């Protein structure tokens, strides 16, 4: 019989490390699990700002974090979705909202109705049928509520976070729960029979633990010693290998949306925070040097800090859990932040680890299962990201043409093939984005199926669509009654 797990040491000092520490400590308070963070400070690839998926709110709820308090103290704002500009030509735009789209018609999903309208030459504006989109467009926001009116719960939302403020918030919270913190650098990792035995600090002190979480970011300071360079390279599909970001002045009366702007070498982004904003540029060094990218970023947003460039190697580990070490965050998966899933990947990692928390110090079967689940999730997030470059029309610069050359990952090719043939989206077991998310993306990018299923056409031919006008009006009225986004943010307690 192997010994029970009593301690976990987490290496890293950013949001990933503290989110994991908080979640782990909270989940196993009852057994007095010892959780220690070797706080290395923020790593080079920690972003200044993040945009998150609605799922982050569920971990806040589990941890007992009050969202109003978090927003007030960290200067966060809300996000109903993302507005993508210029991705398909200079004047183009599409939005990716969180939540439902329209209403079912005779049992057929609304996106099929929209596709059919477009196929038959009478396109409609997808945004008119989403409360979230109309609220976003008009600068309004209120949280969804359960009410008689199904529209008020038809959407959901994520957050714009000031990463260092959020990290500090989590750190205080974790320390109140009893997470131990050691401020130091890591000098060496001692291995024993392939497992991590101890972390060695510059002063010679050693930190022992039963399990080690590598949250040190791209450097993967611990995992690289245990698991080596175990990487599935995604760069053939996702060629962006640089990220630069800067703090910028606050945006005046910003809508509750994340904004991206495609260029000839990548894409720019900007998110509103309560007292400032953060802007960044994700691009390919093959097509542009860093100085030129920084120049373009300065043009895009009024920078108030020196833009910092960091490298990106889009890829994932095959075995993020190897021996007694688990890599979470960018030490396991490096993916450009386009779809807002960087903290989601962290959350999946820590939630899956908690569910599969080893019963003893020998956990081979748990590791196999963990790696299977996280691998499928990561691949699905990659596919959703790649689809932003490979569906509908694109831009024409060399960079964009180069992005089109590699055959798609088979999982994405299968999904898009069937979609193009009959409009049907098949989801696999571990996917973050659902049918409605794919519909926003594909219809938004004017990527239409060649035909629709015969049974859908049977449902839609005699569809009474007169009530759709009523739906549009109801959405407009409801959006009109919401407060302005920043007024709502300032009301948070």
């Amino acid at each position, binding site marked *: 019989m192997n010994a029970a797990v009593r301690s976990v040491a987490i290496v890293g000092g950013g949001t990933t490390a503290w989110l994991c520490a908080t979640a782990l400590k909270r989940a196993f308070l009852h057994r007095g699990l010892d959780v220690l963070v070797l706080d290395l400070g923020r790593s080079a690839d920690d972003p200044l700002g993040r945009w998150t998926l609605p799922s982050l709110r569920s971990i806040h709820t589990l941890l007992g974090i009050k969202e109003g308090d978090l927003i007030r103290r960290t200067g966060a704002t809300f996000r109903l979705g993302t507005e993508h500009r210029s991705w398909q030509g200079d004047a183009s735009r599409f939005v990716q909202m969180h939540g439902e789209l329209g209403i079912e018609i005779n049992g057929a999903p609304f996106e099929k109705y929209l596709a059919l309208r477009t196929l038959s030459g009478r396109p409609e504006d997808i945004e008119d049928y989403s409360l979230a989109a109309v609220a976003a467009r008009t600068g309004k926001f209120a949280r969804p509520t359960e009410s008689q009116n199904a529209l008020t719960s038809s959407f959901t939302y994520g957050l714009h976070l000031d990463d260092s403020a959020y990290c500090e918030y989590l750190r205080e919270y974790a320390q109140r729960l009893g997470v131990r913190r050691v401020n130091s650098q890591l000098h060496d990792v001692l291995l024993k029979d392939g497992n991590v035995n101890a972390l060695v600090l510059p002063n010679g002190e050693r930190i022992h633990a039963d399990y080690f979480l590598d949250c040190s970011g791209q450097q993967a300071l611990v995992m690289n010693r245990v698991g080596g360079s175990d990487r599935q390279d995604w760069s053939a599909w996702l060629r962006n290998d640089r990220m630069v970001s800067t703090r910028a002045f606050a945006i005046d009366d910003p809508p509750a949306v994340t904004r991206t702007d495609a260029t000839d070498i990548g894409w720019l982004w900007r998110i509103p925070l309560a007292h400032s904003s953060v802007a960044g540029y994700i691009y390919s060094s093959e097509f542009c040097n860093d100085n030129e990218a920084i120049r373009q970023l300065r043009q895009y947003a009024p920078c108030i800090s020196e833009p910092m460039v960091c490298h990106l190697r889009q890829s994932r580990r095959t075995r993020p859990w190897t021996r007694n070490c688990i890599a979470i965050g960018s030490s396991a998966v490096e993916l450009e932040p386009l779809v807002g899933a960087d903290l989601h990947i962290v959350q999946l990692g820590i939630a899956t680890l908690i*569910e599969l928390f080893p019963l003893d110090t020998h956990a081979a079967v748990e590791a196999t299962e963990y790696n299977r689940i996280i691998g499928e999730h990561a691949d699905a997030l990659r596919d959703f990201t790649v689809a932003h470059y490979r569906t509908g029309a694109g831009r024409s610069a060399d960079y964009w043409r180069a992005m089109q050359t590699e055959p798609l990952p088979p999982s994405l090719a299968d999904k898009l093939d069937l979609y193009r043939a009959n409009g049907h989206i098949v*989801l696999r077991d571990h996917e973050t984005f659902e049918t409605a998310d794919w519909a926003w993306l594909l219809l938004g990018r004017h990527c239409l199926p060649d035909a*629709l299923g*015969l049974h859908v056409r049977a449902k839609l031919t005699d569809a009474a669509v007169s009530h759709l006008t009523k739906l549009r009006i109801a959405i407009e009225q409801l959006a009109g009654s919401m407060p302005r986004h920043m007024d709502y943010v300032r009301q948070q307690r």
Partner: protein
Amino acid sequence: MSQPLNVVIVGGGTAGWMAAAALSAALAPQHRRVRLIESAEIGTVGVGEATLPHLRMFNRRIGIDERDLMAKTQATFKLGIEFVDWARIGDSYIHPFGAYGSRMAGVPFHQYWLRQRKHGHAAPLEAYSLPIVAARHGKFVLPADDPAALLSSFGYAFQFDASLYAAYLRDFAERRGVVRTEGKVVDVKLRGTDGWIESIKLADGSVIAGDLFIDCSGFRGLLIEQALHTGYEEWTHWLPCDRAVAVPSRNVGPLTPYTRATAREAGWQWRIPLQHRTGNGYVYSSHFISDDAAAQKLLSRLDGEVLGTPRFLSFVAGRRRKTWNKNCVAVGLAGGFLEPLESTSIYLIQIAITTLIDYLAATSGFDARIVDAYNRWIDMEYDRVRDFLILHYHANQREDSPLWNHCRTMELPDTLAHRLELFRHRGRVITYKDGLFLEASWLAVYFGQRVMPTGYDSLADAMGAAELDRRTRTMREQIEQTVAHMPTHDRFLSTYCPANSEAAHA
């Protein structure tokens, strides 16, 4: 779209008529023309059939009134399957249509149960399942709609006469314009250019052309195999049974609201109670028992007087390499065979048809992208059922006969081996989004087959012991009280859907 889709279904029986009924209901009349060819000379396999709750969705989708269907097919209700003598002789467990207990603090109930068991004071797991307790007491009511009510914590299926079911669907389909042609297929003509099926020829010389051919001709696969030579993936090394002998018997005693599967020396015996008789059969491996001996054994193990003579079937466990090949879709036994141990036959027919309907986008020239996606989906469904069936055979502690020794020691598919290892280690069930068998089903069979985890999820330790004992006791008491107030299955049937004499003679 100019021409309607011209669908030719070859073979009546459950698969053929389910396909005809669903296609005629789901597609607009201007989009399809559906014709079904069947021969009275060729009998259908139709015996007593047990179904899964999913069939209710099929009924709803195509607009079948469940009460009417039940009355006309001599149907009874089914809350699960009782497995007798599987892990060891003398054992009995029920695989219920519903969960055990309820999740607490986000942790699956069975993890708490494992914790109590480790401390030596767990009540039997069955006591936490409303459908099992109801089944053991011969009780039944329809589930409640209110998701908060205990009475909504289960589903149900039907046990019905498969030939009456086919007749019922035939009537349904014919009223929606399906044309039935009596005749025996004697030839299949393939198109020279691409080998697609152009037409079939009947014994009377008539030629029937079509865009889409649905092969419901049974094991032999008249179109998919005999004409198109699609190939078959055999699974007999995991599922060695290759024969069945079936015979009905007279009802004795109250009608059980569940199907029974009793493990036998060379396979297993089914018992399916219908309103007018009981369906029985012995599924066996010809490697371990002769046909005569199997029939003898079956006849000596009926509860009531035998009605009719035993009928034999033979089959090979496995699946067609492509269930959609060119312009032919194989449905039912023509597509693959998995023994009816978990009542999956009609489910697999249903999923083939509904997926076909969901995917069909054109009335001719089927898109290879659609065909590939369809085959991937159907393969996934078969593979998941297959693994679940293998578990029943593999996880046994019987040393009384060579079949069981073989199954206990055989090598497993990797997917199942990983599942089992994870469950044995810590009681974790690998769940998935699509395909059959949710967590409760895997739990029922793991525990029923005496696969006992050595550990459990440490999250289940967070709750105080007294609190846990109190909450679990309450769950058991509520189930007991609820079942005490339920009517008997017989009584419920007699008021809800008594079979009328007209249907019995259809």
